[in-house]
């Protein structure tokens, strides 16, 4: 039982990271109908920024600066490469973001170097006991931060003028334009938010073991999360992220006992397996909008 709870708590921590990344994907998707494959690069860029700033200004200030930096980077990408492609097929734009990811990741990897960099987080691998279960502090920190970020984000969408504009633009771009909203601002803002979320996620990914060149793989696991939740559902992204995190953690804990024939490290690919199974049953995810078509 303790093992199960511990596994779930770790999964929720990891799942919070996926949820943050998935929110970034979904926000960009809702605004522009494009899946941005540049999220891994933005995540690494944010984490690298934190790891360089942490010595000078301390962890928390570094995280804030890292978020701002990654948001500006996302904004820059949108302005220079994505904006000229407005109106082109979404597949083309998605492949462009894939190109950005590959190019940008090489630059970021240059800053990471061949060694592991530390983000200087105050938690490390320390554990505390919650209701008799030893839980890693960094998982609690991730979970709490994610909950906070999500609350702020949902409040922003619900109550602020800009948030309302973003919802309107996501609902119907032309009508939003006709009502005098700047869809361009919405595009830019959604990329900036996605960049910021990726930076927070990247920092928490790098807590504990540190930051190396292989961490970008984690950002792609947010893709199964958004597929699970439905591409255009913010709540779905959070639920999907947490689910994927818990599934991965449970598989990592129990697969070697129950299904050793699946091989070591099966947990790493289990999100993709879950995604395929879900898609066979529900092609638009759990909370996604069904496209209705009749012939």
């Amino acid at each position, binding site marked *: 039982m303790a093992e199960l709870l511990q596994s779930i708590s770790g999964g929720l921590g990891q799942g919070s990271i996926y949820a943050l990344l998935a929110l970034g994907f979904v926000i960009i998707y809702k605004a522009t109908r*494009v899946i941005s494959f540049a999220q891994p690069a933005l995540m690494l860029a944010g984490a690298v920024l934190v790891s360089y700033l942490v010595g000078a200004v301390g962890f928390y200030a570094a995280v804030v600066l890292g978020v701002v930096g990654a948001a500006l980077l996302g904004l820059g990408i949108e302005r220079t490469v994505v904006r000229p492609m407005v109106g082109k097929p979404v597949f083309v734009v998605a*492949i*462009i973001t894939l*190109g950005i990811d590959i190019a*940008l990741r090489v630059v970021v990897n240059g800053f990471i170097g061949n060694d592991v960099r530390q983000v200087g987080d105050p938690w490390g691998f320390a554990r505390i006991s919650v209701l008799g279960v030893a839980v890693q502090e960094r998982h609690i920190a991730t979970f709490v931060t994610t909950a906070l970020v999500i609350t702020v984000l949902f409040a922003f969408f619900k109550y602020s003028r800009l948030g309302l504009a973003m919802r309107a633009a996501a609902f119907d771009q032309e009508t939003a334009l006709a009502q005098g909203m700047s869809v361009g601002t919405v595009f830019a803002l959604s990329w900036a938010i996605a960049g910021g979320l990726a930076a927070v996620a990247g920092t928490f990914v790098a807590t504990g073991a540190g930051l190396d060149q292989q961490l970008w793989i984690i950002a792609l696991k947010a893709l199964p999360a958004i597929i699970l939740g439905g591409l255009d559902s913010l709540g779905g992204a959070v639920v999907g992220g947490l689910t994927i995190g818990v599934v991965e953690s449970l598989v990592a804990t129990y697969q070697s006992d129950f299904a050793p024939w699946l091989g070591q490290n*099966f947990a790493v690919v289990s999100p993709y397996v879950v995604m395929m199974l879900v898609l066979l049953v529900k092609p638009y995810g759990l909370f996604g909008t069904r*496209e209705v078509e009749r012939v």
Partner: protein
Amino acid sequence: MTETSTRFKSRTKRPSGRPELYTSYSQHLRMLNTRPKFVSVTAIVAVAALLPWVFDDQTLSLLGLGLAASIGAIGLNLVTGYAGQVSLGHAFFLAIGAYTAAALSGDPEDNELIGFGVTNVVVWLLAAGLVAAFFGVIVAPLATRLRGLYLAIVTLGLVFIGEHIFKEWPELTGGPGVGRPGPVPELFGVGLNTPGDFLTAEQKLYLLMLVTLIIFALLARNLVRSKVGRAFAAIRDRDIAAEVIGVNLTRYKVLAFAVSSFFAGVAGALLYTITGFIEPSSFNLLLSVQYIAMVLIGGVATISGSILGAMFITLIPALTRQLPNVAPFISGDATKAFNVFQLETVLYGLLIIGFLIFEPRGLFGIWIRIRNYWKAWPFTY
């Protein structure tokens, strides 16, 4: 020359003085429908066939890799360019082909690796294609239910799942970091990857690639100018409209995946006869992206463009490896800060972005532009 003239004039009577005017739809649809096309294709094939006696072995094996990759690029172009189904999973199908061929032609005496000792190149090439096509058909039910970017993500997942399986199945793949020897090509008792009396191994492999590429390019060209090709294009342009005019979506999407995977399987099998070694972790997302880049840089929905793009992407490393001699700030050492390997990866990314923004029709589009310029010269406005 007289023979080519009759070829283009005899079948349908053309108005005198207008030798290039089409007077029937079947003329327009013919594979080599103009005389310049016929002459230039013949010339290119002839030059390509003579190259083994011009270049040294190292260049030949590089060109051979390009030819083999062309088959894979044509396969991806069929499913992504013609049928409009975005696939990021091409690396997976390449891997299936490579391992099928390697296992079939492997040494049966080997206790650690699966091997059946079937070294006939025709047999394992077909088998590699068929097994890959089989997996393509398995994936297709997902494809027929999904559209656009959902499909891209699923095929991306396929690459990761595939990578996991190949790493965890050492009997087939040798395991990560170890790998296994590539397929052994042999035709009618002649080993194609060993030096012979008349030809070196590289010359023989190059010719094998060239012949296979010509066969598969013709197959693809024939496919896309047929009913099937038009159905693919209809699905790509608007799938609902395609269904309205009577295209069976499920059947043609499955067919597109099957044919594309067949091409990928063959390409995967051929690629690793040249390198002679298969490493299971090489079938990653970057490999898929390289093939996407080939298609986009060469030209979406063109066969000749796929070949151009594949040659281009294959030759980039050969060019960038020369750079440290010219530009000393770029290092040839993989552990140094800014090295040619990083430069190559950046180039893939930037080339994809650049071509998509500035020349969406790819190298093929540039060729069309040049051609149109000279068509009207000197009246270029």
